[in-house]
Every structure is written in structure tokens, then in C-alpha cells.
């Protein structure tokens, strides 16, 4: 199964472009975080950079595989590499996207706990990945775990805003709320295609807000 099966036909192509945009913004934030880590050596910043790198890779994979499926280039790839099953090839793309996104969100959620105990991170990743990949409905479980992580993250960023009321903290709190709403729409999209498109639009708002914050922070 591929994520493109959840999309309405008129949305084909737009989703690929949006996922590519999310990947680029996440990559920019990740690179910037590593630059900040180099200047400060703060563990929280390193974790943040790693999590956004994973999220970026996940979107790149999703975008590339969706593009291959839409253009039917996946058939050519399978022929070129002598892969028997196209469905298997599409599944690899989907599972890779799920793996990287789940690990990215788990690291980001772990970062908010501000703990030195790495066992908590391993427990979070093991629980969510086993829960997703051993489930009969992998995609549904993936969206469910993503939603849970995004609830935790939204809570953290709202609390951060309430403790430090600035335009920048508000942008991030609202961005993660949009991401949470988007994730809820993906959860419902398993049965209704339109929600898949709405989910992408909500994610677009979220990443634009993150980008706006990125611009404001860099502006000296």
C-alpha cells in the first residue's frame, strides 16, 4: 500500500511538491540547529537537529516514492533493478518514510523531557516502531503514534509560549498545533480521501510558520 492511494486524484502532484517543500524546510532547520550546536555544545540542540534531519529524510523519501508512483516510473525502476513486485517496491518507500518520521518525532518528543536517561528514548522508539510495524493496519497505527507524539510536542511548545511570550515562541506553538490537526486529518484520511489533502494543507501552514520563525531568528 502507498500513501498515494489515500489522495484524491486531483491532488496527485501537489502532494509530491508539498512533501518536497516540507523536506527542504526541515533540512534547513536541521542544518541551522547543528550550526547552533557547534556554537553552544548543548545536547538539547543536537537532539533537535537530529530529529529534524530524520523528519526531512522522511519527507524526501515520501516525495520521491510518490513521484515514482504517480509517473509510473516505479515500474521502470523495478524493471531496471529486476525487482519482481512493484507493490513490494512501493511498500519499501512507505515503510522507510514511516521509520524515519517516527524516529524523528520520538527524538523530538524525548528532547522535550530534558532527561539524560537515553533508555527512555529507546523505549519510546521500540514501543512505537513495534506497535506500527507489527500492526495489521500499519498506516493507521503510524498516524496514531504521530498524533500522540504531536500532542506531546504541542503541549511542550504551548507551555514554552506561556512561559516566554514572544512572537517567535507563538509561531512555533501554532505551527505544531497545525501539524497536530494535520496528523488528525491523516488519521481520518484512511477512510476519506479529502482529509489527506486537508492534512497536507494544514502541514503547509505549519511549515510556513516554522520557516517564518527561521527567518526571524536569523535576522540579526
Amino acid at each position, binding site marked *: 500500500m502507498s500513501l498515494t492511494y489515500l489522495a484524491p486524484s486531483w491532488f496527485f502532484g501537489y502532494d509530491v511538491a508539498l512533501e518536497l517543500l516540507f523536506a527542504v524546510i526541515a533540512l534547513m532547520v536541521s542544518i541551522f540547529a547543528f550550526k*547552533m550546536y557547534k*556554537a*553552544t555544545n548543548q545536547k538539547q540542540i543536537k537532539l533537535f537537529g537530529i530529529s529534524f534531519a530524520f523528519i526531512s529524510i522522511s519527507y524526501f523519501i515520501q516525495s520521491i516514492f510518490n513521484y515514482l508512483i504517480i509517473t509510473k516510473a516505479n515500474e521502470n525502476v523495478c524493471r531496471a533493478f529486476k525487482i519482481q513486485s512493484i507493490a513490494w517496491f512501493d511498500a519499501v518507500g512507505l515503510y522507510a518514510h514511516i521509520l524515519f518520521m517516527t524516529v524523528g518525532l520520538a527524538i523530538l518528543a524525548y528532547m522535550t523531557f530534558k532527561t539524560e536517561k537515553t533508555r527512555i528514548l529507546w523505549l519510546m522508539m521500540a514501543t512505537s516502531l513495534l506497535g506500527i510495524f507489527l500492526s495489521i493496519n500499519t498506516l493507521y497505527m503510524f498516524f496514531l503514534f504521530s498524533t500522540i507524539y504531536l500532542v506531546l510536542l504541542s503541549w511542550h511548545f504551548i507551555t514554552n509560549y506561556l512561559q516566554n511570550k514572544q512572537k*517567535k515562541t507563538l509561531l512555533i506553538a501554532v505551527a505544531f498545533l497545525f501539524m497536530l490537526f494535520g496528523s488528525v486529518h491523516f488519521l481520518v484520511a484512511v477512510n476519506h480521501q479529502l482529509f489527506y489533502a486537508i492534512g497536507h494543507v494544514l502541514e503547509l501552514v505549519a511549515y510556513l510558520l516554522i520557516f517564518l520563525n527561521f527567518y526571524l*531568528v536569523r535576522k*540579526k
Partner: protein
Amino acid sequence: MNKKRDRLEIIHDILHSIRDKAGLVRQTHILYKSNLSHQMLVEYVGELMEKEFIIEKEDKKGKKHYELTDKGHNYLNDYKVIRGFVDSYGLN
């Protein structure tokens, strides 16, 4: 009432106190300027040397001085950006 300073701010204050004195100061001056206990200061100075933000030097009389490295200077120059990024995501 003033908000409690976080690690980034304390590091900024220590490095700033060194830069204010043309980049070469004794520990007592840092102690006075950074408003930390002696024990805390020793820990921070150790960490800053380990991370290569400052280096320790001895004068002819054997007295220790601290000097900012390029990394320390960069930290002070980029502090506003670092602060903005860290505050945005609650990374402190």
C-alpha cells in the same frame, strides 16, 4: 523579580566579562562579574575550557588568566541568534 538565568545566559555572562577586559582576565574578576558561587564558576570555567571557548594562561608570576578563543568570540557574536533559536523551541 529577575528570571533565573539559564546555562546559555551564564556562559554568555562569563564570556562577556572576559571580553570586556580585552579578553584576558583572572578568575576573581569573572567571579565578580558573573555573579556565581566559586564552585559553580569552577565548573563552568572547566566546561568552557573543555569546549574550547576559553583558554587558560599563566603569567610570569604563575597567576592564571583566561582568554577568549575564536569559538568564544563567535558565541558572543551569535548570541542573539542562538538565544532566539533556543527560546523559540524551548531548548534551554
